[in-house]
């Protein structure tokens, strides 16, 4: 494989080596290696069906919930293999949070949505601390001012953009180290999208962030590193500015310039 598939940062938060994913007999990911560090937002781009979501879901073992899915290769979080039997998947998912394509708040109050993870993982010994966690998370997700007077309203009553920020608040309430976002803006209007992008800027540095997007402008706006996927392989991975101005691979160039996808 080309050496550009794995960038060698000195101390990666997560790193994947030769990861392969199968759905039954069908191979969806054909040997991907990548390092993800704390300082950069990483964008996954590529035509739909190329395996971006599939690969993203290997990073917090969400593929475990699909009975026919099978993962090979090594993925580490702080040097620990997340697929080893010693890894507790509940702990892993608390450390590697996820935001989905369609906002999926629980049919509970705004407060209970954000408190959900903290309660499950027993993070708050008392009500005051839980309140604090909820407030901090909503503040960080840029939603506090909009909802502070109606925390007991149902989360599903919010607008789409607010719901998505609620889901982000819910994810950061358990204080994760990595946040995975799978096309978090594809169901939102431009204004809501801009808010999420702004939020990603603010969250950078505190969390390692991976965002899947099929919108190349978005990748250019929010990320420092970009990985281009095609047909289950990672074709190219590098600084976002390089990928967009001076890609090394023919296929990347074709995709960026809109030749296909």
């Amino acid at each position, binding site marked *: 494989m080309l050496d550009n598939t794995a960038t060698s940062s000195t101390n990666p938060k997560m790193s994947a080596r030769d990861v392969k994913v199968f759905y039954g007999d069908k191979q969806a990911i054909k040997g991907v290696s990548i390092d993800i560090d704390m300082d950069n937002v990483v964008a996954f781009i590529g035509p739909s069906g190329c395996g971006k979501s599939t690969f993203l879901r290997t990073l917090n073992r*969400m593929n475990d919930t699909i009975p026919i899915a099978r993962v090979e290769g090594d993925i580490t979080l702080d040097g620990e293999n997340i697929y080893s039997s010693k890894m507790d998947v509940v702990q892993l*998912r608390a450390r590697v*949070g996820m935001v*989905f394509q369609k906002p999926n708040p629980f049919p509970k109050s705004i407060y209970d949505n954000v408190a959900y*993870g903290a309660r499950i993982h027993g993070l708050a010994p008392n009500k005051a601390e839980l309140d604090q966690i909820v407030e901090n998370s909503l503040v960080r997700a840029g939603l506090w001012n909009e909802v502070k007077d109606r925390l007991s309203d149902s989360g599903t009553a919010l607008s789409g953009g607010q719901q998505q920020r609620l889901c982000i608040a819910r994810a950061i309430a358990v204080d994760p180290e990595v946040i995975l976002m799978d096309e978090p803006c594809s169901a939102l209007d431009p204004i809501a999208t801009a808010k999420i992008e702004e939020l990603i800027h603010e969250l950078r540095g505190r969390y390692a962030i991976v965002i899947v997007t099929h919108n190349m402008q978005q990748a250019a706006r929010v990320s420092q590193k970009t990985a281009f996927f095609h047909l289950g392989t990672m074709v190219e991975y590098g600084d976002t500015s390089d990928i967009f101005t001076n890609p090394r691979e023919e296929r990347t160039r074709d995709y960026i310039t809109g030749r296909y996808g």
Partner: protein
Amino acid sequence: MTSTAILFLIAGLGLITWVFARARAGRFIQQGAASVHSLPSYHGWYAAMWAVVPAILFMLVWSTVAPALGSYAVLESPLAAQLPTDAFERAAILSEARSLSRNPDVKVFNDAARELAPLYADADRNYAMIGALAAFLLCFAGAAYAFTRIRPDFRARTQVERTVMLALLLASLIAILATLGIVASLIFETVRFFNLVSPFEFLFGLQWNPSDKVVDGQATGFGAVPLFWGTVFIGAIIAMLVAIPLGLMSAIYLTQYASANVRKWMKPILEILAGVPTVVYGYFAALTVAPALRSFAVAIGITDASSESALAAGLVMGVMIIPFVSSMADDSIAAVPGSMRDGSLAMGATKSETIKQVLIPAALPGVVGGVLLAVSRAIGETMIVVMAAGLAANLTANPFASVTTVTTQIVQLLTGDTDFNSPMTLAAFALGLTLFIVTLLLNIVALQIVKKYREAYD
């Protein structure tokens, strides 16, 4: 000629009309008419309809009118002038004469009837003849009319479609009209019942001890509260205590834990359980469960345990309802978007935490709707309670005691030879109406909840 033969003949004529009309329309196409609107077969159907439908409608009407005309003709005859003037006697003789004219072996008590019978036979024969002739005439007239309308630009297809639509509408109206008729008769008889027993006494009285005795225009012993209680105790409490947890748990297992293979086996088996005739559950309850419960009760020191018990009926009814609750809950849980489940799992929640905290709350409205439908089913259930609950109208919360239900008492009140006008018979209608109203309300509320819930996730 019998009416069956006439019907066959008319049908035959319809077929012939179909063939000829079709051929005639087909010729237009062969002759190359510029624009033929409908296919030949539509012309065929159109003409056949005209030949058959008016004739058959006429025969239907005639079959009700002809006997009256026959009687009228007989009464006009000189023989009838000698009949007694007393209306009752007269009617008796006339009806005997009529039966005799149809079946010579019938036993008669009035000799006058024997003389009148041939008159009846004659009159009936004449009117049958007239009817048959008129029917054939209508058949031919209809066919002829349709024939004159067959032209290349005639929209036979539209006409046929409209007739089909009308026929379907009529079919659906029949079901609705039947329901309305049943409800109307329930209401009518209930009003008569409430002339004998005050609605207040019926709905809130604690003594159920029905008898046919009417004193001062009032009947006593029709306080239905013990029946309502028995119905609720068995159908809404004991049965649901069994059906809700078991149904819900089996739905959760099937939707969340079972592999595709297991689901493939278990779902049909559950559905078979729903298809077992209730009478089978009934004797299972009466012959197996009730005696076992009684010995159990005696063993743990309950001396007044009856051989028919609320518990036996309720348990078996609960088992009967499990598949119903399970499949409603199954649908509701399956309707919760998978993204909700993924969201919870991605937070690090375990499977059972996800089920308890996200899936069930999200599916709850649908489950509640399903449970209400199940309750409405349970309280209308008859066979199991008739066989296993007993007849004693006890107002007790002891599950080992015998209680009775609304449906059981309806059966009880209507079996045996009771007078149709007696308070006991009428009480059955009042009970039926009450049951109908309660189940109707339950169904409306339940369906409303389920519908709202479905909309929430669309």
